[in-house]
């Protein structure tokens, strides 16, 4: 047996052996366990939490617990808010990033390089540090506690512009645009009929990441919204901040907050991995 492995090793030196698989399976289980375990707790009543040894299989109380979450917190409203925020932010970021990316990648205009450099430089600035003036600004607009206070600051990102500029500059041949111009296309029509279709692969990756980021965003909604009109993450944190901790209830909340994202991930994980590995997504 050992010699067979050794021979195979020599023939196929980059192939993974038993220990590699064992280690990777262990990593996989470690990744899955906390999520699985929250599902376990969410499907039991509170008595099960204190049992020794701990229960490790799902129970039958999940739907009852979900009903309790919707009873004790405005979770339905939170879901609606999060869908609204993540949806509008995603559409806006993808559209405006493609528009600006097109201009930076394919059009010539005075100040282009300087403006692009400014946009790229801002991606490295820690955004949380501007949170106090942003709050003051929202208070001036009378938006505190309202959902637009979370949507509007997210409508554009420097990172999106950078990503689309990079992608479009290599994805669209200049000849194609010149041909369009000779045929009398205005710049706007070029954008609509040539650039938007060509941008689709990068737009999909940008959209996925923007959606997940907006869905998971916690700190800014916590600062600017109220517990009566929360996003999912905010509602979840309020749920966990009660003075008596009802673990079954709280972890049912985490399951509800994680499920939509895990579903997106299961369906489109391949593209997400592709996006990260092509160096597209940083931070």
């Amino acid at each position, binding site marked *: 047996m050992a010699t067979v492995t050794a021979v195979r090793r020599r023939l196929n*030196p*980059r*192939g993974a052996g038993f220990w*590699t698989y064992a*280690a*990777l399976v262990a*990593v*996989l289980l470690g*990744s*899955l366990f*906390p999520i699985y375990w929250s599902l376990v707790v969410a499907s039991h009543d509170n008595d099960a939490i*204190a049992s020794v040894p*701990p229960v490790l299989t799902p129970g039958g109380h999940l739907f009852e617990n979900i009903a309790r979450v919707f009873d004790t917190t405005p979770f339905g409203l939170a879901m609606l808010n999060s869908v609204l925020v993540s949806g509008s932010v995603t559409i806006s970021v993808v559209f*405006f990033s493609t*528009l*600006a990316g*097109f*201009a930076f990648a394919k*059009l*010539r205009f005075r100040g282009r390089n300087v403006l692009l450099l400014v946009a790229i430089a*801002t991606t*490295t600035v*820690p*955004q949380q*540090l*501007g*949170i*106090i*003036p*942003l709050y*003051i600004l929202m208070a001036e607009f009378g938006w505190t506690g309202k959902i637009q206070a979370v949507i*509007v600051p997210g409508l*554009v990102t420097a990172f999106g512009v950078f990503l689309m500029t990079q992608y479009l500059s290599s994805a669209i041949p200049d000849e194609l645009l010149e041909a369009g111009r000779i045929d009398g296309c*205005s*710049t*706007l029509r070029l*954008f609509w009929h040539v650039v938007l279709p060509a941008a689709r692969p990068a737009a999909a990756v940008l959209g996925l990441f923007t959606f*997940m980021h907006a*869905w*998971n965003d*916690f*700190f800014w909604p916590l*600062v600017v919204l109220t517990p009566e009109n929360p996003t999912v993450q905010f509602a979840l944190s*309020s749920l*966990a*901040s009660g*003075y*008596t901790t009802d673990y079954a209830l*709280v*972890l049912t909340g*985490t399951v509800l907050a*994680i499920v939509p994202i895990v579903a997106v*991930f*299961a369906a489109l994980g*391949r593209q997400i*991995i592709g996006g*990260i*590995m092509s*160096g597209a997504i940083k*931070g």
Partner: protein
Amino acid sequence: MTSLRSGPRRRWAYQLDVKGSPYLYIAPFFLLFGLLGMFPLLYTAYVSLTDWNLLDSNREWVGLANYAELLADDYFWNALFNTVSIWLLSTVPQLLAALFIAHMLNRRLRARTLFRMGVLLPNVTSIVAVTIIFAQLFGRDFGMVNWALDLVGLDPIDWQAGTLSSHVAISMIVIWRWTGYNALIYLAAMQTIPEGLYEAARLDGASQFTQFRKITVPMLRPTIIFTAVVSTIGGFQIIAEPLLFQAGTGNPTGGSDRQFQTVGLYLYEQGFSMYEFGYASAIAWSLCLIIVVVALVNFAITRRIRSS
């Protein structure tokens, strides 16, 4: 009709379209980003020079007084110590583990996509949900970690109460969420390393580990620098994990004794629990400066990884 369309009016419209429209396309980004991204950042600098409390309409120019106060503030230094400690405890093991996982993922594997998705899964879950789950796992009375410690004959630990123990637990959250992501970044870089280098090393009788140390790591140098700098920028801004790790209160003090309050959390406490906007802004700018300095130091250190 045709003569009109190709006449001077059309040429003028064409010129306007080509020269002017690009500005129109980048305008939404710059207007929105300028107002809601850049302006707040710069305005933070001004606010940090005032005594500005939300509950008090008197705003006084105080010059650098907030910064002077900050330098003498024990809570700030305590928060800075906690931040550095949690950052070190989370970043170093995380990047090392990511390197090894990437190395394994780089072998010829069955179910490649499954493994890649599996390691990335933690990264797409929300910080709030994950922190709540981990706070429970590290719970004093019914936490699974203490149960496991008990199994191997060790005493249970009150994870939240101690300085080091709470830092370890919070670091575990960061490690769990970010190791897989960094592994994929490393994996992408590993795939660009020419196979010939490994073949030559094997002919010379180099072991797997030697190949890893002498070829893989040096070739990954730029990527390692990149991840180290990004982890610094992220790690120094940690807020949600320590805020939510203190289960049952939602208190921004980071533990009863501030044993795990980070600088970001202290900023939040001053800004949105005491409404001391001036002081909180001074914390924000100091944190920004610290991040820049540490990122540069990091850059300098990781740059010294031997290039073969």
